[in-house]
């Protein structure tokens, strides 16, 4: 993955292993409905004040990934059909925090 755009990489590009987090604080996961991937939708990261920080489109496997600062974040998922879901998640340096969001 390159970092020369401000924009999103293909959503859902997976970190291959936790060790790849390096010095990053990675929050990643997958959005599912009835156990199947939700391939169309968006994952938004909000800071502890509720302000928007970043957003990625979901990957074909329903995946998303953020490189956050350490701390507490809210992950909000938007999908067709007015679907909204939220999870509070903590990010730590050198760690990949995984979560699955069922909608």
């Amino acid at each position, binding site marked *: 993955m390159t970092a020369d*755009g401000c*924009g*999103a990489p293909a959503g859902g590009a997976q970190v291959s292993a936790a060790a790849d987090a390096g010095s*990053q604080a990675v929050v990643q996961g997958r959005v599912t409905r009835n156990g199947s991937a939700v391939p169309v939708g968006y994952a938004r990261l909000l800071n502890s004040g509720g302000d928007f920080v970043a957003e990625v489109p979901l990957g074909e496997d329903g995946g998303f990934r953020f*490189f956050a600062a350490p701390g507490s974040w809210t992950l909000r998922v938007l999908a067709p059909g007015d679907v909204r879901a939220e999870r509070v998640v903590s990010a730590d340096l050198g760690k990949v925090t995984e979560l699955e969001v069922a909608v």
Partner: protein
Amino acid sequence: MSRSDVLVDADWVEAHAGDPGVVLVEVDEDTSAYDKGHIRNAVKIDWKADLQDPVRRDFVDRAGFEALLSERGIANDDTVILYGGNNNWFAAYAYWYFKLYGHDRVKLLDGGRKKWELESRELVTEVPHREKTSYHAQEQDASLRAFRDEVVASIGNKNLVDVRSPDEFAGRLLAPAHLPQEQAQRGGHIPTAKNVPWSKAAEEDGTFKSDDALRALYGDEAGLDFGRDTIAYCRIGERSAHTWFVLHELLGQPNVKNYDGSWTEYGSLVGVPIEVGDGK
């Protein structure tokens, strides 16, 4: 200038995307998004491969822009409707770029690809065939683009709007949170810059907030002096193109420039002043 001069909605696109003289163009940060599915009749412009010089850090020159639009079948009198992912960041960047080279008939699809997708509207994979044109571009409009010397000279006397996230502004992150943290040599922001994240100008579905809400956001809340000239920046200039669009095209502010060198340039310059920490 009213909103209808610079924005169209999804219903308009569904009704007019095939009209003669209307060209729909998708510009995405994820340059493979178009290939997976796009709005019918849309052509693709790759913000990186098509709009950036392959060697120098700069845009393609006038001749290069002419060749690009000619090859994509875009004529000087066509109305270009731009849209893209991530709340139209790169579509706004392309809008600003088209204006830079003098193409006046250009509009954004409000909400971009995200709103279109969330409404489950049609996406297709067929690539339309458009006859080549002989596009003629203008010289770059210097009133729209800021360079580093002007930015440094603007500290304390122009509005500087840093549209990155609060963590990037404060220097805690060097890039948006969905990208690896690398690039500029130093974190922080340009002294006197106001932090108004681009996202505050957009609704959750990617559409722009109302003019009244936008005026309140930049004026009352952020304290921009609308009587002064303004320079917007982010990390590489596409989120700030979104804010440039808001200030210049929606709110009609006369002297607004986008600093596309942005933090990746400023944060690597030797000797320039930098502030860190949250906004004052």
